[in-house]
């Protein structure tokens, strides 16, 4: 069983400070952490490996700082860690990021099962996982809340689709994105930390990828662009509703209607 887990290093805080006078953004903190949702994907992968044997490879795209995160995955039990890192990948949006990851997976000669976290805390789009599946032409199930069965040939999962839960089965190769709280990610092991201290993290650059068409990567391969950023509209100010109880109830009702809360 060959499993690849796609992970991402994200800013430690998603809070961007905004200068209240100019409305300009202040610098993002350069502290980073592992996208918390991805830890559930890694834990799920490790559990499947424990059941069926095989390997768990962690794949990420990002600058070399991501090596810290990749080393951490070794202490949880990952077998290999690969960073796709190149200036040519800079400024990638969902399409370019998912394409680069899919190319990286091709270099790794594919996988039976690919796992992603449900979303990242910085982009919040939850799009990269399904997009990788599309690039690779394999089926996917998103929002997986439970692995019901996993064998050498197929995986059966429960998906949360808001009003309904659906049990779906897929044969390999396939991709799943897992929900948070579907398992408890294990803590790093000191023994593994010592054992893997010398295990290197592998790097792949643009030159290693099968598709050498530069227009598919980085900014040039990204159809979306950020035209501007600005502070969100101020919060509601304070209103004292006037009149008798009935009039107050009615005003509140109208307000809730206009805010589309009801």
């Amino acid at each position, binding site marked *: 069983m060959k499993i690849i887990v796609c992970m991402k290093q994200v800013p430690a805080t998603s*809070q*961007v400070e*905004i200068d209240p006078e100019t409305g*300009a953004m*202040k*610098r*993002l903190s350069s502290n980073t952490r592992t996208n918390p949702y991805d830890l559930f994907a890694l834990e799920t992968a490790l559990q499947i490996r424990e059941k069926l044997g095989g390997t768990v490879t962690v794949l990420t795209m990002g*600058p070399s700082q991501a090596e810290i995160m990749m080393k951490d995955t070794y202490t949880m039990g990952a077998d290999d860690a690969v960073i796709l890192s190149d*200036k040519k*990948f*800079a400024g990638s949006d*969902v*399409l370019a990021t998912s394409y680069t990851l899919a190319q990286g997976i091709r270099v790794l000669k594919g996988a039976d099962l690919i796992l992603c976290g449900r979303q990242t805390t910085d982009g*919040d789009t*939850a*799009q*990269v996982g*399904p997009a990788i*599946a*599309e690039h690779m032409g394999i*089926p*996917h199930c*998103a*929002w997986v809340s439970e692995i019901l069965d996993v064998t050498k040939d197929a995986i*059966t999962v429960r*998906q*949360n689709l*808001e*009003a*309904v*839960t*659906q*049990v779906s*089965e897929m044969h390999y190769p*396939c991709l799943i994105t897992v929900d948070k709280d579907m398992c408890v990610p294990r803590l790093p092991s000191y023994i593994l930390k010592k054992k893997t201290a010398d295990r290197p993290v592998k790097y792949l650059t643009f030159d290693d990828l099968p598709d050498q068409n530069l227009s598919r990567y980085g*900014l*040039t391969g*990204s*159809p*979306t*662009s*950020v*035209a*501007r*950023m*600005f*502070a*969100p509209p101020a919060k*509601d100010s*304070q*209103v*004292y509703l006037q009149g008798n*109880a*009935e009039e107050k*109830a*009615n005003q*509140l*009702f109208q307000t809730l209607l206009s805010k589309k*809360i*009801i």
Partner: protein
Amino acid sequence: MDSIHFNPARCNLCGDCIDKCPFDALSMAETGIEVNDSCRVCGACVRSCSQKAISVEKKTGTVDKSQWKDFLIYVEQERGDIHPVAYELIGVARKMAPKVRYKVNCVIVGSEGTVENAKKLLNYGVDQVYVYEHPCFQGFKADCYTDAVSDCIAHIKPSSVLIGATSLGRSMAPRLATRYRTGLTADCTTLDIQENTDMIQIRPAFGGNIMAQIMISQSRPQFATVRYRVMDRAKKVENPSGKITVCEINDHMISSGIKVISSAVMEKKKAIEDAGIIVAIGRGVRNEEGVGLCQNLADALGATLAFTRPMVEQGIGNQLYQIGLSGHTVRPKLIITCGVSGAIQFTSCMNGAETIVAINSDPNAQIFNVANYCIVDDLYEVVPKLTALIQNKKED
């Protein structure tokens, strides 16, 4: 697509742009300012440069935009009915459509009953509804649904495709956008359109404390997802003139790598942290009758009933539903507090709510310091009246 370009002849190496860059993407190198991987082309440096040495280089368009026109809305079905986000997408599309003289079309995919549901859409002023109905579309299979909608896109070449940001929509939209090698903007909160048919897509970024305007100016179609209850619902039209087109299903569309074994209606009890609407009650609710009134309000709103600490200590509420430092922190869209005094231990755990309504007969209650809508009145009077208004609205 775009990139930052420095004009070395103008740059005086003042370093202002390095300070202003929110992404830490600029640095002083030996040969001048250098842009690294983190650049998101936000343009902060362009505006900061007193020498006008920085510009955004736009790549010239590669797509013939005139080949792609009209809006296409993906209509999701949930448990045999139309997911209401579809009516909101129709609403926002119809608002934009006149600016570029576009039509508003829909595509709907599903098993038996899909054609019947499609007919309901015509009342909301859509021009064409493309229907893909087949028993194999029972249950959500991302690959099949993508194939069907992709087939529709290939035939009608829409300029913009709007999809509800539901679990299903967010699972399918990235596959579609990837297939057409184009852009997808998730969770738009505002949508508008320029005369050149580029959509202006605004979405929250970085946890919502900053907004980003996203453009897809070099490729078509433009994909956007929008969450439920963000846009205004379309109004019904007097004389619907739209048409239903039943589309041909091919084998490719119905062969799937996903086998749906079963599906069940979710009856998971909502954790208080996940509740979108909360009715919270405090000591001002004096007796069982009061709890009942507030429970009725919560039911009418589809809200979760929550409690302050004294209410839990008195055995009226369960600790699982307690808000406060010794209970839970909540960030709902709406919280209505009834008879809550508003101690800091309570308010610090709910003041992140989008809208706070406070009902309390004491005008000096601290809760009014954090509330957006303040009702100084007897909750025994206000709550039942409000409940009745909401119930009547539902029966309309």
